[in-house]
């Protein structure tokens, strides 16, 4: 048996929905490594023939990304918008709707940039700064921790 592109897609989705950040799979000499970005980005899948990749213990794997800092921003002047509480982050007011903000959006301090749901209670998150959104780290429908960086904004002059 071999891995098809569809299998990889399926596995990627499983990882997305799981609490894990990394997955290593070896079948008939084919190794698949799927990893989420440190705190952001889309899961990157790497498919390659058997190499010397070592399997990490699941325990260590899950631990590593928990409170990982946001990756270095391309914009050194940008400031973080952090999650004011733990909950499920939503980028849009309802499923299927356009996101509150996208990269390049101009925001004011009181612009709503997302929603964090705690037990069906919707808490709006505001930018807290005036400027331009340069990076979006919080993923739609995924748990964000208290203090986790949701977006980065280049402050206006």
């Amino acid at each position, binding site marked *: 048996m071999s891995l098809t592109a569809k299998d990889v897609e399926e596995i990627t989705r499983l990882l997305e929905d799981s609490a894990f950040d990394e997955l290593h799979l070896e079948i008939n000499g084919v190794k698949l490594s799927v990893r989420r970005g440190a705190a952001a980005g889309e899961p990157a899948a790497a498919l390659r023939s058997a190499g010397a990749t070592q399997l990490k213990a699941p*325990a260590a794997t899950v631990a590593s990304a*928990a*409170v990982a800092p946001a990756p270095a921003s391309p914009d050194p002047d940008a400031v973080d918008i952090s999650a004011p509480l733990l909950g499920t982050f939503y980028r849009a007011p309802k499923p299927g709707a356009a996101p509150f903000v996208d990269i390049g959006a101009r925001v004011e301090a009181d612009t709503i940039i997302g929603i964090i749901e705690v037990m069906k209670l919707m808490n709006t998150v505001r930018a807290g700064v005036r400027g331009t959104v340069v990076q979006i780290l919080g993923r739609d429908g995924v*748990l964000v921790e*208290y*203090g986790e960086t949701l977006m980065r904004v280049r402050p206006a002059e």
Partner: protein
Amino acid sequence: MVQIRRILIANRGEIAVRIIRTCRELGIEAVLAASDADRDSLPARLADRTVCIGPARASESYLKADTVVQAALGVQADAIHPGYGFLSERAVLAQLCEERGLIFIGPTAAQIEAVGDKLRARSVAETAGVPVVPGGPVESSAQAKSLALRIGTPLLVKAVGGGGGRGMKRVDAIEDLQGAMALAAAEAGAAFGDARVYLERFVTHGRHVEVQVLGDGAGGVIHLGERDCSVQRRYQKVVEEAPAPGLADGLRRELHEAAVRFARHLAYRGAGTVEFLVDADAGCFYFLEMNARIQVEHPVTEAVTGIDLVAEQIAIASGAGLRRSQAGVEWRGCAIECRVNAEDPANDFQPSPGTVVAVRWPTGEGIRVDTHIASGARVPPYYDSLLAKVIAHGPSRAQALQRLRRAIADSRVDGVRTNLELHTRVLADPEFQRGGVDTGFLARIVDRAPAAGAAAHG
């Protein structure tokens, strides 16, 4: 039976480390729900994953039941272990778990409510045929006075929603009753959101003896013996041991049976502790309260029975029931525990937060240390001051005591003040060495050498 694969631990400190250890042994993933102040703590490093649930203040993190449940759902945990303190005895967390299909590792919300209300617990005890201290509820000052006269002084004014000594006042003369009641009600209202108080006779020479029980939730209850926690200061336990020294076998058996009757009456689920005030001279005892959670001092019971109480909690929560009959519980030797707290003996044992620059915990035959403190650990000012529990087990009480004295002498904590020196004095005290001290013992020791701590620190 449900397979529990991932547990969210809604706690911190040594008990979080303790729960993670058993999760590891059972092959269960442990996710720690930590406050911002505990992101770099030992349990955060040991857990398979840590999620930050809020800022340092417990009211905005460890005490937020909805956030804790959201975190458990978000990391797809099967169950929540509440540890002790914080949300462990708040029915709301158990209730939310029941609503959201999460397993709460503990009793039902209804059971937490039943034992959390001290007056209801008293009436459960009475129904179960367990003796209670003479006393009862009071609604008016006239009623309070007539009840107080009937009970006699000294007596205690206690908070219905209370625990840990808060909202508790001693009254030595009837004319002080009104003032003490007002004070207790105010304290209770602030601490528990429930200003109701009740009166109980103050038993002057009492010992605090508690019985560990396990219930399957269907009426099956076994006990794992008793612990003596009479070495207390301001109702805070400092040294605990199992078994209780010098109890007549008949009295010991009656205590066990009373605890089992109480828990069975509730069809109690999980690990719990029924606390009694024992008048060893008169050979009688009274029900105090039931704690519906794992206790700080559970290791002494584990030492003498060889049973992992956290593992039993998880087994019961998963529906495996009681894995042992009463006849399958055996006791070996004696175990004594010292609670090492970050407290300043020179300043009336006030909490002493800070950074632990260097630490050395004892090792050796029969020694167990439950701690979250390693060199460099921070002791935040927001939480309780417990640094470690040093437990010694031996074939006899004398041997356990000898091992513990050596272990305390080998313990060293630099950077924060501790009560280690107090433990040295307790363990060297002839009265403690004889065994069976009452709850007034520690206060007498502290008063005898009030300047010892001050002198040592200049």
